[in-house]
């Protein structure tokens, strides 16, 4: 499916001007060379396209200008003047004839007018022996009648210098067949012609004949026609099969945006004002460079401009598609092909590609399917998704997951906050649920992960199981409408559980929500739309409405709304490709100066983790100070804020919330446990827990007490290492004595494999059962500890000690 669609990619569609231009060449390449001021390279590209550059640039009527998208808006790009500039400012106009070995085949060209000359030149340049038959006594045909004819003919002569091309004058060829057979040089072959010429009676025959007589059009059109004949003839000589001339390119299907920030004034206007536009005057270098900078360099670049993955990898959709096909479909001689596994696991799966693509080519779908194929083949590197799947398992475990509903029977709404909102701050969930329950007292709450990590990991069996669990819970609760706080949960339900009706928390809040005046003293704010919100424009509107009613004045971001882009979290690319996710984060942060207001806690925490001020819209709604809670969850508000109030935040309170450091991966899981405990212990008397373990059985004290310095705590979180795992390693070392004493340092070190990964700790004892961690790290390779030391069981030649 994808591979059929990729052929529709408009990547290779030419710029608009090239369609009108009789020579179909890479205009964007030429413009790029002029922009760089490299007129010699620009000249070579131009000469290669038109063969006789001075002649063509002087005679060209600039049909390209008709197609230029700037023609109706500003002034069409003066491509013709840029070509003249290339001719004028090149270091050398002399032709470069590379020492191409002679082909050993001969071509006859009939007619030494512009078409015949162009064709003859191109063949001779490619190493063919060429003879041109001309009925008159001179070359140039109609060019001789033009005002500057002698100049053009002089250029043509100079281009032919050094090439294997004979001219036979005053011979009218009447029988082309005879010419080919070599038994006739034409009806008047002996009228002063060189009797030794090829094709003349008694000489070798020609391999092909090009008859340039009778071609219609002006000199430019004739030169173009002569050049266009070359490839089909050459293909015939090589394959013996006839081939049609390449069809003229169709008008491109993409549209272009006339963007700002380009030079404002057109070169033609500037030259006219200076009185320089007479004849075929060439512009100066600087003027030419500016005109080239004014050019839009038309090509389809919607995905290359929008998609972070394409920008980062600098690969086109077709290249990516091919790499994915090879990686997922084939096996190499030495085992599986691993070429694109990181690429496959880097995509944020945000879908901007198909949104912007004029052909709706869906790279996201390609990468989702590829992940599933790698999982099915058993060749997805486990490390890419291991953390995210483990974290999801924690969110869905009895430690963190809970469903609470009215004892009297469930009502119309069930709040589904998702797993990251409470992980970021339990207060977000508690306050939102309080807000809902105050308005719709029979609202249930279901705390667990929506299952998207399984989808992103390509684990179909797992996601089918998880969505089945959610569907069962929905039936148990009486099929309520789910209220979503996270746009990704909402999108996931819409895709995989379409039977469950959903509404976003922010849409409910926007109806009769709070009012405020946060503009006072506040810095600039912008709404950052999470990528998944592209599917729900109503939610985007609701959040803007909420923000405005709270008093924010908003500056729009370049991306957003139907062009919303990922914060870097989507698709779980962070382990597979940390450099890429850093690139994405920096790209998003660079979009706006001010504080971002978002409605996905992952976006919030990603930006804040980079020091970029970011709040969740719930911060603005619930971070206010005020009276103690009257609601069930008294005492639990947003972390670090006064609790219990539905009052909106103060501007100062918000500034602090915007820079709140995101929780570590350990704190995130701990927050989920706190959330569940708060919900269960703070439950109103008329509510009950549905199924599962009602109270988290987690004992946070663990077997050992581990003190971790702040810097190390942040580092291990960035590396997705959980503190309880490290405590378990220390406990293992202490219980078994499997540890190393580092002499003279009072330090110990040891390791343990937990799940797939091996974790190392270096620590010192600071009290009974209390330890200070000094180092922690992990590796993915498994140590063959059972093998005899010194005698590895393998014959693999790769050794780790060598780089």
């Amino acid at each position, binding site marked *: 499916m994808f591979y059929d669609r990729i052929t529709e990619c408009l990547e290779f569609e030419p710029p608009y001007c090239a369609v009108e231009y009789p020579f179909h060449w890479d205009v964007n390449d030429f413009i790029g060379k002029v922009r760089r001021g490299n007129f010699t390279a620009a000249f070579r590209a131009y000469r290669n396209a038109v063969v006789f550059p001075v002649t063509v640039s002087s005679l060209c009527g600039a049909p390209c200008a008709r197609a230029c998208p700037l023609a109706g808006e500003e002034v069409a790009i003066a491509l013709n003047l840029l070509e003249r500039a290339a001719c004028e400012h090149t270091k050398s106009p002399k032709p470069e004839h590379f020492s191409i070995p002679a082909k050993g085949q001969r071509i006859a060209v009939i007619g030494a007018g512009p078409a015949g000359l162009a064709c003859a030149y191109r063949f001779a340049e490619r190493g063919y022996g060429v003879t041109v038959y001309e009925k008159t006594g001179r070359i140039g045909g109609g060019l001789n009648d033009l005002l500057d004819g002698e100049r053009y003919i002089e250029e043509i002569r100079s281009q032919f210098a050094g090439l294997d091309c004979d001219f036979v004058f005053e011979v009218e060829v009447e029988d082309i067949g005879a010419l080919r057979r070599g038994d006739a040089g034409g009806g008047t072959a002996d009228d002063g012609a060189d009797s030794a010429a090829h094709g003349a009676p008694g000489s070798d025959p020609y391999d092909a004949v090009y008859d340039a007589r009778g071609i219609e059009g002006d000199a430019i059109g004739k030169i173009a026609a002569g050049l266009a004949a070359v490839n089909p003839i050459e293909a015939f000589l090589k394959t013996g099969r006839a081939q049609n001339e390449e069809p003229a390119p169709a008008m491109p299907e993409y549209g272009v945006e006339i963007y700002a920030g380009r030079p404002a004034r057109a070169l033609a206007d500037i030259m006219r004002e200076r009185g320089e536009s007479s004849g075929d005057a060439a512009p100066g270098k600087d003027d030419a460079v500016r005109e080239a900078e004014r050019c839009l360099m038309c090509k389809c670049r919607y995905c290359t401009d929008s998609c972070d993955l394409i920008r980062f990898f600098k690969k086109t959709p077709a290249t990516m598609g091919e790499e994915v096909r090879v990686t997922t479909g084939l096996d190499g001689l030495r*085992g599986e092909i*691993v*070429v694109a596994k990181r690429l496959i696991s880097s995509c944020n799966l945000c879908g901007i590609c198909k949104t912007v693509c004029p052909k709706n080519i869906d790279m996201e779908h390609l990468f989702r399917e590829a992940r599933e194929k790698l999982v099915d083949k058993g060749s997805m590197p486990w490390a890419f998704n291991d953390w995210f799947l483990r974290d999801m398992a924690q969110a869905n475990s009895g430690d963190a997951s809970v469903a609470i509903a009215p004892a009297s029977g469930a009502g119309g709404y069930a709040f589904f906050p998702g797993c990251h909102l409470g992980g970021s701050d339990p207060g977000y969930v508690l306050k939102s649920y309080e807000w809902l329950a105050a308005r719709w007292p029979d609202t249930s709450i279901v705390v667990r992960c929506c299952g998207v990590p399984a989808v992103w990991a390509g684990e179909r069996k797992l996601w089918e199981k998880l969505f089945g669990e959610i569907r069962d819970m929905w039936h148990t609760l009486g099929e309520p409408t789910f209220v979503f706080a996270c746009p990704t949960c909402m999108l996931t339900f819409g895709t995989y559980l379409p039977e469950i009706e959903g509404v976003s928390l922010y849409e409910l809040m926007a109806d009769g929500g709070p009012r405020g005046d946060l503009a006072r003293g506040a810095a600039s704010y912008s709404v950052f739309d999470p990528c998944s919100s592209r599917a729900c424009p109503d939610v985007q509107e609701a959040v803007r409405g909420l923000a405005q009613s709270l008093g924010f004045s908003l500056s729009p971001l370049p991306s957003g709304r139907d062009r919303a882009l990922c914060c870097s979290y989507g698709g779980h690319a962070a382990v597979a490709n940390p450099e890429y996710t850093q690139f994405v984060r920096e790209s998003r942060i660079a979009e706006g100066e001010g504080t971002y207001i978002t409605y996905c806690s992952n976006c919030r925490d990603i930006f804040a983790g980079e020091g970029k001020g970011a709040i969740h819209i719930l911060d603005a709604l619930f971070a206010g100070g005020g009276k103690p809670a009257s609601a069930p969850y008294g005492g639990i508000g947003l972390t670090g804020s006064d609790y219990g109030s539905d009052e909106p935040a103060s501007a100062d309170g918000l500034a602090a919330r915007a820079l709140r450091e995101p929780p570590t991966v350990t704190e995130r899981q701990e927050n989920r446990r706190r959330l569940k405990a708060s919900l269960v212990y703070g439950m109103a008397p008329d509510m009950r827990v549905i199924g599962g373990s009602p109270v988290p059985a987690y004992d946070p004290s663990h077997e050992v007490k581990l003190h971790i310095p702040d810097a190390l705590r942040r580092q291990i979180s960035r590396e997705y290492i959980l503190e309880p795992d490290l405590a378990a390693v220390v406990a293992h070392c202490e219980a078994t004595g499997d540890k190393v004493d*580092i*002499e003279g*340092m009072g330090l110990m070190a040891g*390791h343990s494999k937990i799940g797939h990964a091996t974790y190392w700790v270096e620590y010192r004892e600071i009290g009974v059962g209390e330890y200070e961690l000094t180092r922690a790290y992990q*590796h993915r390779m498994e140590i063959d500890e059972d093998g005899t030391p010194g005698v590895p069981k*393998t014959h*693999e030649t790769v050794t780790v000690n060598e780089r």
Partner: protein
Amino acid sequence: MSDKDTSKQYICHRCGIPLEPMKTGFSYLNRNFQADILRCPTCGLVYIPEDFVRDRMAGIESRMESK
């Protein structure tokens, strides 16, 4: 406190003797490797310093995952 401080002695806690470099096998994604790793000559206890994990092993892991 660099790992590269070779003057540091690593002593097997249980056996009470210094660790020595020995060829040791590793595996990742169905491929096997070997490296000289500090081990206890008696019980085989392994010690891999942080620099070695970050500078050497991580690069090989990454190349095994994808080109």
